[in-house]
């Protein structure tokens, strides 16, 4: 559900979005990313408004919003954990790290904690294979992970 205040803020963002210069489509991805960082997702209403204000079809906006893994049409938690599942991390036992996060926050990949604190996802190679296993939380990279380190790291996120 989108609250009234969210709707208002969203309208502000749209208006900001339409005010920046350049080519329409370039604005689209930038706009969706700003929506994502502002609201934690790009909800349906946002997509509809974006289409209207940029004068392009909803399907085009939806197509972009669902193409990129750092955009989500579902609400995400305040902090998004992305554990790397690619081979170099897998060889360094990323399964253990996934299990450790599951045990710590009580949800599985693809889920969000009921208090909205964490969303948990698996992601493809994040480019720190020399320090595997690794994960990202929001924009931060955490490397050379162990189950013990996981509990400590998770505590630092509010």
């Amino acid at each position, binding site marked *: 559900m989108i609250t009234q205040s969210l709707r208002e803020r969203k309208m502000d963002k749209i208006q900001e979005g339409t005010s920046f210069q350049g*080519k*329409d*489509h*370039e*604005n*689209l*991805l*930038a706009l*969706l*990313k700003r929506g994502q960082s502002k609201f934690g997702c790009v909800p349906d209403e946002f997509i509809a408004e974006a289409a209207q204000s940029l004068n392009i079809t909803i399907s085009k906006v939806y*197509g*972009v919003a669902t*193409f*990129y*893994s*750092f*955009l989500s049409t579902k609400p995400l938690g305040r902090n998004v954990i992305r554990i790397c599942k*690619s*081979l*170099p991390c*897998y*060889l360094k036992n990323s399964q253990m790290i996934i299990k450790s996060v599951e045990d710590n926050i009580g949800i599985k990949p693809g889920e969000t904690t009921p208090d909205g604190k964490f969303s948990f996802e698996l*992601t*493809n*190679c*994040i*480019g*720190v*294979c*020399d*320090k*595997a296993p690794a994960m*990202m939380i929001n*924009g*931060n*990279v955490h490397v050379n992970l162990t189950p013990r380190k996981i509990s400590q790291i998770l505590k630092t996120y509010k």
Partner: protein
Amino acid sequence: MPEKRIVLKNCEVIDPESITTYLDRDGFKALEKAVKNLTGEQVIEEIKASGLRGRGGAGFPCGLKWELAGKAQGDEKYVICNADEGEVGTFKDRYILENDPFTLIEGIAIAAYAIGAKQGYIYLRAEYHYLLDLLMNAIGQVRERGFLQHVDIDIREGAGAYICGEESALMDSIEGKRGEVRYRPPFPPSRGLWEKPTIINNVETLMNITQIILNGAHWFNQIGTERSKGTKVFSVSGDVKKPGVYELVLGSRLKELVEELALAEKIKMVQVGGATGRIIPYEMIDTPLAFEDILGSGAVIVFDESRDVIDIVYRTMQFLAEECCGKCAPGREGTEVMVEILERFSRGEGMERDIVTLEQLSQAMMLSSLCGLGQAAPIPVIDSLQYFRSAYENQIRKNQGVMT
């Protein structure tokens, strides 16, 4: 052949946050030389003569790409630095960006001068967002010192999509669209970003430019093999004692890299070039690392004797199926079918006819996919069937005696 630092010359030597440390190491001398003493055409001739080939994986001759864009009609041209390093097991560009952004910026500035572009972009993958401030700071310092009179450089960030490392998908992403691969021709040097002539070069490719301009094409041309000039930066990970970034003269042996430098033991196989790279069994560990033999993006993932080949290939194909843009059927459906089949093998429920399907599908995908992802996706399947066929056959026999 030995380790040699051309691309990584300044890494862990200069302070990436301070242009003065770069200027002390001949920083911007190459740009100065190009702008004062050479025409754009002469810069392009030098790069052509050097034999430099693209370091992102495909190995296209860099000078030829520049020449096509240089000769293309129109005032509005673009240079794009591809910093969308998404290839599994590749982290060399991250290492370069965080240690020496200045050489890269100088390389982009020279490229822009050569083809007459007034705008350059660095397309930075979303996963490397933490490098944004460092890069912006570096660009700001370079601009302040007056080295960007002829070109402006901006950063465009991705939003999480492996395929956006493919040049045409990358351009669509900068244009704000889904990162889907384009039909070619036209190629970017004639019609690229916003339909304008564009060159797209990998981070590592552009890191070579300053050295070629300062030392001359002949100097560069003496390094490497007949068709692979210069050095290559490798990202080594997996079952090794010393994972990390290594720069070797092209033509060096895989053995030297993984056994002597990265200290791997009891190797079963090595995947060279990432998810779509070749699988090299230990018997072939003496293979040279060069465009003539094996290279790709320089991702080198080592697997020891404890690893299960089918599991590795299955996971690789899952990755490719997920990251395929979906535009063409061979890429979209081909990778999915391969995932299904490989999953059966991983459960010990493979069928003999599955191997035939894998081989036929591989041929179809290589022939008819729209881009490199779909064309090269079957490589791990083909290589593992060639070198580790018994691993597949063993997973058929477990199929409760049923042979179809």
